[in-house]
Structure formats: structure tokens, C-alpha cells
């Protein structure tokens, strides 16, 4: 991939020179747009080629940091007892505190503290035994109090690492593992929802979401492209879903990601960064980041400067547009939240203050014990239990429901796990992707696939017939594999005299090919095999056919 991009670069450089010769009046700015094409071609390979080739000394690289807001999966909100729900009638899940009526006070939800601590432990963070709440002031209609209660000075967890992988390499089938540092995890309130009605020049405010607990995960800018960021977010989603602390659905707004993007030359101080918002899926995250890196590179290469601004991502065009609303640098006037004393968590029951009810203390030991199996551990377990490759284990855990499907098939069939993996990865995934279905929508149940594989293992059908039957099962999910084999008479032809007869027929009718084989060209044998398979409608064992043909043509 590095080689081809260098070739393309050389070609376009040549084109650049020719343009300058033939069109001397074109300004350098217009020629720079051609440079853009070169950059776009090579940016995708850049992530991978950075490791392989020694990039030319003054190449710009992207620097990406993420801020993730994960909505805590709890029954009630962070500081009030109103329900957390999605798509409820407007303003029906709002308490007096959420509407910031005077005289109301925040009361912290224990479940949210446990969720934040669990997430911190899963991400190898140091949990601060004492953390503080602050007010962050800004005016916006969906923030009724005029401030948001957050944890700016001393958050609940700091200094963690997220290890994530993505499929890289030339064929995208090698697991590449990277890690990114987590700066801090803090608890904060969500704001309400505003619906803009430009027609009547007003905004409609729904406070159902105001006050819901959020965990803000701030990451250090250790990533360099959209693909890495998307993989990191996917890993976070899997971890949070495994912990049960967040349902991680980006489309429903349970997981919101903002990207801070800048470019610089390695070794130089960081460039000016822009913040990209309004991203609603991991795929759009990668697109937005890659576009923004490109845009900043073009700006810098044509001599401009990048503005420190907030930009919004437009999913339809794939571009980022500056957001009008932000005026200059915001001063949030942070101040300690006077209505909440410090939040204390204790290492073990023995260090907790004596005489306090257990419901009033959060103990790290207990939370640690309740940690479920994390995705990385699960992947390792699959590799060890079933002897499959890490790439396959990665895909199994990554796709929703695929691991359960695989394990169900492996349990019920006598075929080895490696064979099952082949079927799940190639045949099943192939059709699912083609028809854009999720694993739960697959017309073939794990039991049906297991039965099919058993037929093959028992020698009742050949491997090529098995594939045919799979396609049939997909179209007619009501039938079993056995039925289809019977109806279409696809059972294995085991009669060796019959096979011998067919092989002899093919050999006799193709003397030229036989001559070529005897002359040393073994590849022609495959053609003869193909002909025999056609005759037997794929029902004979390929290994046997090859042996017989080889015997006959020796």
C-alpha cells in the first residue's frame, strides 16, 4: 500500500509539473487543489504506512483527542429522583430540581457513583478517594439553572488506559493493538433537549434529559486518524455495555463523542485544535476526523492558519461547518458546588467509617468483585477455548450477537471450532453484509447451521453441496438441511464404480488435457476436476475425485 501511494504521488507530482508548463497562468492556489487529491489518496494509507515507511521529514500528521459523554444506565437522574427515559412525553420526567425551581437541592444517586467507579476500574484508572463537585456556568435555554454541576477540580477517576484493536495490515486481517491514555472520568449533569423551530424563530425546550447522569471520559490526544478513533469508541461501547453502566447507543444519544483535531509535524508543538461535534455513529466519527485533518492540512499548506473553533459535522456532505453560536473563548466561571460536600469512596469495609449504613458507602473492593468479563478477556478466552485466530475472535466480539451464535453452533455440532469459524465468518457474514442484516435477523438459526455441518461431518454431503444447501436454507428458513438434501437429491455419491465411470468418461473425452498433465502441467487437473464435479452436481468427495483422476492420468 505504501508502494502504490508513492507511485501515485510521483504520478501526480509529474502532473503538477506539466500543469505548470502548459498553464503558466494558473495560480499556486489552484495548483494546491491538485495537491489535495494527492493527500486524499494517501491519507487512508497514512495510518498504516506511518509505521512501515519512514515518512518524509516534514509531513503533517493528525492529532486526535476524544471527549466521550456516556449516559449512565440508571433508573433515576444524577441529583434528583425523576425517571431516566427515552421518548417520553415532553417534560413528563422532570422534577422541581431538574426545572431548577428555587429552593431545590441536589441529592446524589448512589447507582451513578458505582457506575463511574466501575467504569474507572475497568479502564485501569486510579479512583480518587475524595472527589469534588463544581459548577460550570454558561447561558443556554436547555440549562435551566444557568450552570451545570460537574467535577472539574478533582474528578472521580484519573489516569487510565484504554487498549483497543482494529483490523489493519494490507488485507485488514491482522489485529493491531494500540492504547490511549484516559485523562479523567467525571460525573456531570446532562442538559435538556432543544428543538429549533427556525420557521417561527423559536426554540422548544424539553427537560426530560436535563439532570441525567453522564460520565465524561476525557482522553489524551494519542490518536492520529479517524480509523483509530472509531476503533477506540467501539471498544468503549463494548466495555460499557459489558459493565452495564451505559447502553452505548450512539444513535439514541446515549454515547456522544466530540473530537478535538489538530495537525502538526512530528517533533513540533501541537497545532491549533478545532472541536468537531454532532457525530452520531462510529463511522461518521472516522469520516469527520479524516475530513477535518484534510481540511486543516490544506489550510496550512496554502499558508493560512487554523482557527480555534467549534465545527459541526454534516453527515450528508461529510464536511465540517463552523458553528455560529460559539463566540470567542468561553469563561465558565468554575466555582465549588456549595450544596454538595466531597464524595468519599472507601477501599474496603474496614476503612469505611464505623457505624455508617452500608447503603451510604461505596466500597471499591465490592465494586471490583462485581466487575463482569471485559471484552478483551472474552476475546482471549475464545482464542484459548476454541483455538481460533485472534482476528476471528476480534470480529466475534465486535459484532453484536456473533459470539453467541458461534458458541451455539459449536456446542451443537461435532465439526471442529475452526470449521465453524470458517462458516460463520465467510458464509454467514457474507450474506448478512450483502443484505445488510444483523446477526439476530439471520434466517438460519445456530441449530440449523449445526445440523448442516453435522451432515457434512457424517459424510452425507460433500463440502460444495453444503454450501449450496446453505444458500437454499437462507432462502427457505422453514426447511431443515435434511429436507433440502432429500428434495434435491444432493446426497453424497459414494458409489465408487459410478465415480470411476464419470472420471473415465471425462479423461476419454479430453485427450489434450490428459496429454498436458502427463507432460507435467498439473494445473490442468483442476479443470478436469471441475468437469467431473459438474457431472456429479458437486455431490462427490473432491479428495476422492482428485485421487482417481491422478491415477488415471499418470
Amino acid at each position, binding site marked *: 500500500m505504501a508502494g502504490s501511494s508513492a507511485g501515485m504521488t510521483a504520478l501526480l507530482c509529474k502532473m503538477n509539473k506539466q500543469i505548470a508548463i502548459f498553464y503558466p497562468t494558473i495560480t499556486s492556489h489552484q495548483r494546491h487543489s491538485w495537491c489535495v487529491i494527492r493527500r486524499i489518496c494517501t491519507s487512508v494509507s497514512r495510518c498504516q504506512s506511518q509505521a512501515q515507511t519512514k515518512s518524509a521529514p516534514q509531513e503533517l500528521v493528525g492529532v486526535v483527542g476524544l471527549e466521550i459523554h456516556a449516559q449512565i444506565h440508571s433508573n*433515576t437522574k444524577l441529583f434528583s429522583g425523576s425517571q431516566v427515559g427515552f421518548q417520553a412525553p415532553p*417534560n413528563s420526567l422532570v422534577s422541581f430540581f431538574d426545572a431548577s425551581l428555587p429552593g431545590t437541592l441536589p441529592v*446524589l*444517586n*448512589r447507582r451513578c457513583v458505582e457506575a463511574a467507579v466501575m467504569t474507572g476500574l475497568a479502564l485501569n484508572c486510579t479512583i480518587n478517594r475524595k472527589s469534588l463537585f463544581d459548577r460550570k456556568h454558561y*447561558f443556554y435555554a436547555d440549562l435551566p439553572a444557568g450552570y451545570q454541576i460537574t467535577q472539574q477540580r478533582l474528578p472521580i477517576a484519573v489516569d487510565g488506559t484504554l487498549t483497543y484493536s482494529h483490523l489493519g495490515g494490507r488485507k485488514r486481517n491482522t489485529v493491531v493493538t494500540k492504547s490511549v491514555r484516559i485523562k479523567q472520568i467525571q460525573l456531570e449533569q446532562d442538559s435538556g433537549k432543544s428543538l429549533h423551530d427556525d420557521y417561527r*424563530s423559536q*426554540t422548544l425546550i424539553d427537560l426530560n434529559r436535563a439532570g441525567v447522569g453522564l460520565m465524561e471520559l476525557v482522553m489524551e490526544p494519542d490518536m492520529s486518524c479517524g480509523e483509530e478513533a472509531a476503533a477506540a469508541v467501539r471498544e468503549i461501547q463494548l466495555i460499557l455495555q459489558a459493565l452495564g453502566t451505559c447502553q452505548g447507543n450512539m444513535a439514541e444519544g446515549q454515547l456522544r463523542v466530540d473530537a478535538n483535531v489538530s495537525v502538526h509535524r512530528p517533533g513540533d508543538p501541537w497545532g491549533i485544535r478545532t472541536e468537531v461535534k454532532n457525530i452520531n455513529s462510529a463511522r461518521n466519527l472516522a469520516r469527520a476526523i479524516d475530513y477535518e485533518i484534510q481540511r486543516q492540512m490544506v489550510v496550512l499548506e496554502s499558508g493560512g492558519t487554523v482557527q480555534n473553533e467549534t465545527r459541526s459535522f454534516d453527515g450528508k456532505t461529510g464536511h465540517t461547518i463552523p458553528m455560529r453560536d460559539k463566540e470567542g473563548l468561553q469563561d465558565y466561571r468554575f466555582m465549588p458546588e456549595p450544596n454538595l460536600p466531597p464524595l468519599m469512596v472507601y477501599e474496603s469495609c474496614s476503612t469505611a467509617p464505623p457505624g455508617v449504613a452500608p*447503603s451510604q458507602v461505596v466500597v471499591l473492593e465490592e465494586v471490583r468483585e462485581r466487575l463482569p468479563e471485559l471484552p478483551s478477556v472474552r476475546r482471549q478466552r475464545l482464542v484459548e477455548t476454541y483455538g481460533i485466530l485472534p482476528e476471528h475472535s476480534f470480529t466475534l466480539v465486535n459484532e453484536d450477537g456473533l459470539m453467541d451464535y458461534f458458541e451455539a453452533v459449536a456446542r451443537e455440532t461435532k465439526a471442529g471450532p475452526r470449521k465453524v469459524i470458517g462458516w460463520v465468518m465467510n458464509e454467514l457474514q457474507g450474506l448478512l453484509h450483502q443484505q445488510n442484516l444483523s446477526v439476530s435477523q439471520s434466517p438460519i438459526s445456530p441449530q440449523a447451521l449445526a445440523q448442516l455441518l453435522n451432515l457434512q461431518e457424517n459424510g452425507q454431503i460433500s463440502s460444495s453441496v453444503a454450501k449450496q444447501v446453505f444458500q437454499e436454507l437462507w432462502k427457505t428458513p422453514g426447511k431443515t438441511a435434511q429436507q433440502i438434501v432429500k428434495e434435491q437429491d444432493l446426497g453424497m455419491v459414494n458409489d465408487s464404480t459410478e465415480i470411476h465411470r464419470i472420471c473415465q468418461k471425462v479423461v476419454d473425452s479430453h485427450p489434450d488435457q490428459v496429454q498436458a498433465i502427463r507432460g507435467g502441467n498439473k494445473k490442468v487437473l483442476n479443470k478436469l476436476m471441475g468437469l467431473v464435479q459438474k457431472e456429479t452436481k458437486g455431490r462427490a468427495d473432491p479428495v476422492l475425485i482428485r485421487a482417481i483422476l491422478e491415477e488415471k492420468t499418470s
Partner: protein
Amino acid sequence: MLPPSTRITNSKVPRVATWEPVLENQLPPPSQVSVDLVDKLERLALVDFRNEEGLACLEKAIRFADQLHVVDTDGIDPMDSVLEERALYLREDAVAEGDCAEELLQLSKNTVEEYFVAPPGNIPLPKREERC
């Protein structure tokens, strides 16, 4: 004179005033409030105080707070509130409030189909020159 039985024994309030006025020379030099700072404060707090009275009030308030510099705070962590040693109460995660949309909507003059109505986005404050 109050009868002895109604007099509070062991009161923390001293019988005689112990207030010591802070002299001008004990305070650090007065800080200037620049026009830019006033503009920024107006923008953040959305309070109009550009007139002479407003500025005088602000400067007096800063001077009053300067008295804190007289206290020696070396090696002492600042407090956030006088109740910061109390235990933070943790609430159980059970639904106990909400479902009062009608009551809340009655508080607002302008509502549309159970939504509160607000002006579109943030209307930016006009620049300093335009506001004077």
C-alpha cells in the same frame, strides 16, 4: 434588664465588640478595573453596570474583599464550605419524582404543546461600541 432566667449562659457572642478595623496601609494596592474587563463581565453575567455608580460599586466590593489578604493562609488548604466535613448523602436509585408536566408548564408564559419556548439559540450580545 432581662430577668436572669432568660439570659443565655455560655453564649459565643462576646459581651463587648472585638471588631478591629483594617487600616488602608495593611491592604495591597487597589486593583484597576479595565474597560475590557468590564465588557467581559457584562458579557458573562448579562448585567449592565457600565455607569459610574456601577463601577464605583464594583471597586468598593473588590476593596472590601481585599481585607482577606490580611489573614495568613500559608500551608492551609482552602475550604469550600463550612459543611464540607459532613458525609455526602447517597440516594437509592428509585423513581420518586416527576410526572408534573402540567404544574411546570403553568410557570411559563409561553409554551407550545408541552414544550417550553425560548428564543432561537443564543442571541449574541452586541459589540461594546453598539451597546453604549
